[in-house]
C-alpha cells in the first residue's frame, strides 16, 4: 500500500507490503521524517492508504507519542469511555481503567481532570487507554517517550503480555534496546519503502544471564525459553542460560514453583 498527503503530493510511503502474524512483536525503524508514523497510522486504521488496501481489521488500539489531551474528563472517566468504545461493559471498563492506572503508577491521579495532569501522567493515560480492552493489534508510536523508568518497564511488560496473549504489537521507539530480546521482526522505513531486517537481535545489546539451580529436570515453558546445561557437580544441578530481559521472570517462576527450586547463583557468561 502507499500513502501521500494531498492530491499530487509526494509519496510518503509506496509499495509497502506487510503482514502481521498473531503473537508477534514488530519493530519499525527509520530516521526522523521517513514515514514511520504514517506507516503506524495506516496499520492502526487511522489513515486509509492512498493506493492499495489494508486487509483485516482486528480490534486495534493506538498510543500516540504525545497525548496533551485537553479533554473534560478525569483520567478514569476517559479510560472508561475508551473501554466502552472498545466494546467493554461499563463496569469492566471502569475496573480495568483503575487497574491500568495503578499498574502505571498513576492510581493517585485516577480522579484528576486530564487537563491538570503532567505530561508524563498524560502519557500513562494514553498507554492505559490502549491496553484497557486487551486489543488484538497494538500500535505504539514512541509510546515510551515521557514515561518514568518504572512506567517504561511496566509498558514493556504489558507489551510482552499482549504478545504472549496472541496479539500483534507494532512499535517505534528511539531506544534501540527497547524490547530487543522480544522483537520477532524488525523493519526499516527507507526512502518511502519498507525493508525487512531479518537478522537476529544484536548480540552486543542482548546480554545473557546464567542461573545455577538445584532440583529435578526443569520443566518446559519457562519464561524466556532458557537453554539447559547440566551442572558441573551431580545430576541435580543445572545451568539455565536466558536473555537478561527474561531473567527476573525466570527467577520468579523458579522460586514460586512447587516444590521451589534452590538457586545457587546467578552469573553472567
Amino acid at each position, binding site marked *: 500500500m502507499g500513502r501521500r498527503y494531498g492530491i499530487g503530493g509526494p509519496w510518503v510511503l509506496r509499495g509497502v507490503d506487510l503482514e502481521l502474524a498473531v503473537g508477534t512483536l514488530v519493530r519499525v525503524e527509520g530516521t526522523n521524517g521517513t514515514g514511520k508514523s504514517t506507516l503506524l497510522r495506516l496499520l492502526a486504521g487511522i489513515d486509509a492508504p492512498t493506493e492499495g488496501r489494508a486487509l483485516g481489521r482486528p480490534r486495534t488500539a493506538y498510543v500516540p507519542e504525545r497525548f496533551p489531551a485537553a*479533554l473534560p474528563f478525569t483520567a478514569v472517566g476517559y479510560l472508561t469511555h*475508551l473501554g466502552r468504545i472498545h466494546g467493554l461493559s461499563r463496569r469492566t471498563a471502569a475496573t480495568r481503567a483503575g487497574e491500568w492506572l495503578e499498574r502505571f503508577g498513576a492510581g493517585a491521579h485516577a480522579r484528576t481532570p486530564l487537563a491538570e495532569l503532567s505530561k508524563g501522567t498524560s502519557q500513562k493515560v494514553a498507554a492505559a487507554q490502549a491496553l484497557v480492552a486487551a486489543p488484538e493489534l497494538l500500535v505504539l508510536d514512541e509510546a515510551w517517550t515521557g514515561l518514568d523508568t518504572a512506567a517504561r518497564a511496566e509498558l514493556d511488560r504489558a507489551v510482552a503480555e499482549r504478545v504472549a496473549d496472541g496479539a500483534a504489537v507494532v512499535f517505534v521507539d528511539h531506544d534501540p534496546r527497547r524490547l530487543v530480546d522480544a522483537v520477532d521482526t524488525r523493519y526499516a522505513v527507507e526512502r518511502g519503502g519498507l525493508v525487512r531486517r531479518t537478522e537476529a537481535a544484536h548480540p552486543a545489546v542482548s546480554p545473557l544471564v546464567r542461573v545455577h539451580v538445584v532440583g529435578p529436570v526443569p520443566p518446559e515453558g519457562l519464561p524466556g525459553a532458557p537453554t539447559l546445561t547440566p551442572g558441573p557437580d551431580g545430576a541435580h544441578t543445572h545451568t539455565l542460560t536466558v536473555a537478561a530481559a527474561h531473567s527476573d521472570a525466570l527467577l520468579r517462576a523458579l522460586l514460586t514453583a512447587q516444590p521451589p527450586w534452590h538457586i545457587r547463583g546467578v552469573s553472567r557468561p
Partner: protein
Amino acid sequence: MSALVRYQTALLLRSQRWLAPVLLYVAFVAVGVQPGNPVLDSLGYAAAGLLPVGAWLARLCVTQEPAAARECAAAAAGPGRVHLAALATALGTTVLLGAAGTLYVVAVGDPASADHRVAVPLGPAMAAGLLASAVCALLGAAVGALGSRPLLHARGWSLCLTALAALLALVAKGSPARYAVNGLVNGSRTGDVHLAVVPLIAAAALTAAAWAAVCALTSRRG
C-alpha cells in the same frame, strides 16, 4: 456506536462549548417570539433560526477532540464511525433544542392565523413546527459537516463558508428548509397548517449524502 455517541455527548456537555450556540438560539427565539404572536409565523421563525445553530453545533462536535485523542478513538472504532458519532451528537442536540423551541412557541403563541381571524389547531401546528425544525436541524448538520474537517481545515474559511452556506440553505430556491419555513409562514396567512413531509425526506437524503461523503473522507484527509 452508542458508546461513541455517549463519549461525544459527554465531551460536548462537559466542555461547555454548547453554551454559545444554545444561548444564541435562546436569544433568537426570546427576541423574535413574543407572547401572543401568531403561532405558525413564530414556528417558522424559530425553525429558520435553528439551521445556523445546527451547523455551528456540527462544527463544534467534529473539532472538539484534540488530534491525539481523536486518533485513539479512531484506532478503536474506525475514523469514519468516530466522525459519524460526532455528527449524530450534534444533530441530536439540535433536534432537542428545536423541540424545546417549538414547545415554547406553541405554549406562548396565539393559536390563530396572522390576522388573528382563523383559529389554528395547536396539535397539527406543533407537529408542523417539529417537522420544520427537524428539516432545519438536518440541513444545519449537513452544512456544518461540509464546512469543517475533513473538507475544510482552515478555521477562517470554514467559518465564512459555513455561515454563507447556512444562509443559502435558508433562502436558496429548492432548499427543503426554505420550503418548510415558507410552508409555515404562508400557511399563517390563511390559517392552514402545512406538514413539511417531503422537505423532511429531501433534507434527510441530502444530510445522509453529505455525512457519508465526509465520513468516508475522514481517514484520507484527517
